[in-house]
């Protein structure tokens, strides 16, 4: 039998699932980001620490993400727009899910590519039409997957990846968001 290696340690994830069943407190994670305005609509957001497994945790390295807006919005384009980060998050999350589910189902992947398109009517954010929402109207993800599997098996992996995706859930379900001034 050939061993399947998509580089995902599924056993560790399955073990964690078992352990966390009896320890819901440890499963409570808080992910954090902090941002600093630079100038114009340009800002940088830093991510380094988070809370999980009952204690403070630190990423191996601090990562910085620049957000700006493109020249067509009369901005300097020092980074991608915040709403594009949602697409980054979605693509990253679904792709991670595809790799994990494939590993768990014993399917060897050769390549996974995702194209994500979000349709956004900017009249909403401009306040030009109050019937138009601010966020995306719809998002389409197209996967090209090369794997030792039938088309049906691949479709099942992609469907399962959505079912387990944190970002897919965050985008498709409402979330209670509080914004306050400290």
């Amino acid at each position, binding site marked *: 039998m050939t061993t399947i290696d998509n580089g995902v340690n599924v056993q560790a994830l399955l073990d964690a699932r078992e352990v966390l069943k009896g320890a*819901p407190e440890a499963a409570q994670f808080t992910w954090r980001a902090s941002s600093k305005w630079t100038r114009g609509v340009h800002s940088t957001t830093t991510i380094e620490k988070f809370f999980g497994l009952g204690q403070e945790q630190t990423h191996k390295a601090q990562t910085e993400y620049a957000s700006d807006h493109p020249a067509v919005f009369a901005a300097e384009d020092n980074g991608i727009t915040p709403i594009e980060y949602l697409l980054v998050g979605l693509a990253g999350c679904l792709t991670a899910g595809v790799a994990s589910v494939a590993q768990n189902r014993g399917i060897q992947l050769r390549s996974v590519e995702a194209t994500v398109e979000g349709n956004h009517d900017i009249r909403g954010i401009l306040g030009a039409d109050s019937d138009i929402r601010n966020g995306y109207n*719809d998002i389409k993800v197209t996967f090209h997957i090369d794997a030792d599997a039938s088309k*049906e098996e691949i*479709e*099942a992996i992609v*469907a*399962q990846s*959505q*079912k387990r995706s944190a970002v*897919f*859930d965050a*985008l*498709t*379900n*409402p979330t209670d968001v509080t914004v306050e001034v400290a």
Partner: protein
Amino acid sequence: MSAERVTTVVVGAGHAGLAASHFLTARSIDHVVLERGEVANSWRRERWESLRLLTPNWLSRLPGLDYDGPDPDGYMTAGEVAGLIDRFAAVVAAPVREQTALTALSRTEGGYRLSTGGGELLARSVVLASGACNVPVTPSFAAAVPSGVRQLTPFDYRSPAQVGEGGVLVVGASATGVQIAAELQRSGRQVILSVGEHVRLPRMYRDRDVLWWMDASGVWDQRYDEVEDLDRARRLPSPQLVGGAKRETLDLNALTELGVELVGRWAAVRDGAALFSGGLRNVCSLADLKMNRLLAGFDQWASSSSSFEEIAPTLVPARTRLKLDLGSGEIGTVIWATGFRPDYRWLDVPVLDEKGRLRHEGGVVDSPGLYALGLPLLRRRRSTFLNGIEDDARYVVDHLAAGLV
């Protein structure tokens, strides 16, 4: 007041409790069956008028009582099920005490103490057959639905005539939800159906009832200790099936055809509006994939050489609404078809897990002499249905009897 002593008490005179009684009698174990209402109470009081079983008559056999009526391929009404269970009680000659509710069950030295409307009982063993569907489950945000909208559960719902004017939002697309949505839409109301994870099945596959395939190919015989994710399997929603003379399929495509509007899972109420998930397409493709896998499994079992009988994928509207203003008058009624759970408020024995579910190994509860029957996938996949009780009850009573020696 002195307590009455009996070897075994069975709680509940549904088909499960009566099946337990059948096997207890066969082993000459003295027992009583407590019933808060009448025999088959849930079929008399907790079902809507048009309900028919989704399992065909030939499958609704009980221990010692095969279906012998004129229509083995038909589907019983709730009233007919009550009649069947009445006959079963008579055949079994079950010692049922009707109008006798159990109000407290606690552990004693040699067994259990039971408080009932009719006094105290002491028993060495107890079989809980009080039902898996005693309380309709509704999400917590039901409390945030504006008071102008009427809310019903399947326990309150009787027929379209009882539902007032205005549109109806049916929440949940399992057997109960799709059946109620179809009948309300046919009655002339506009129905919106909020769809979460669901199990899609055609009524007929290759000219046979799909439940014939499940029965014959052994799907239902899978044991609880063979199921990969038992927790999930026990929480599996009921399949989108309806019984009726036409033997029609009642999946989301059929509902769309009737004019029902599909929306995603109802996720929250915010500012008086219902917010629905945008993930409808995903739950539908999961349901399609699982259905096709099941049907392909039937073909494999039958070593059928003819190619797989193609079923059209679920047609998901290009765009579903994500928001519905509950104050606009568009919706007059919400019907929660969001599942049921057992009621264990009288249970003073620490055998419930953190989610309030009974801890048991195939019906043997985690407390000596305590047993359960009638829960989903108790011992086999067929446990979920009337038809599954025979093997379960026999096993549980065998185990119970072994504990008495």
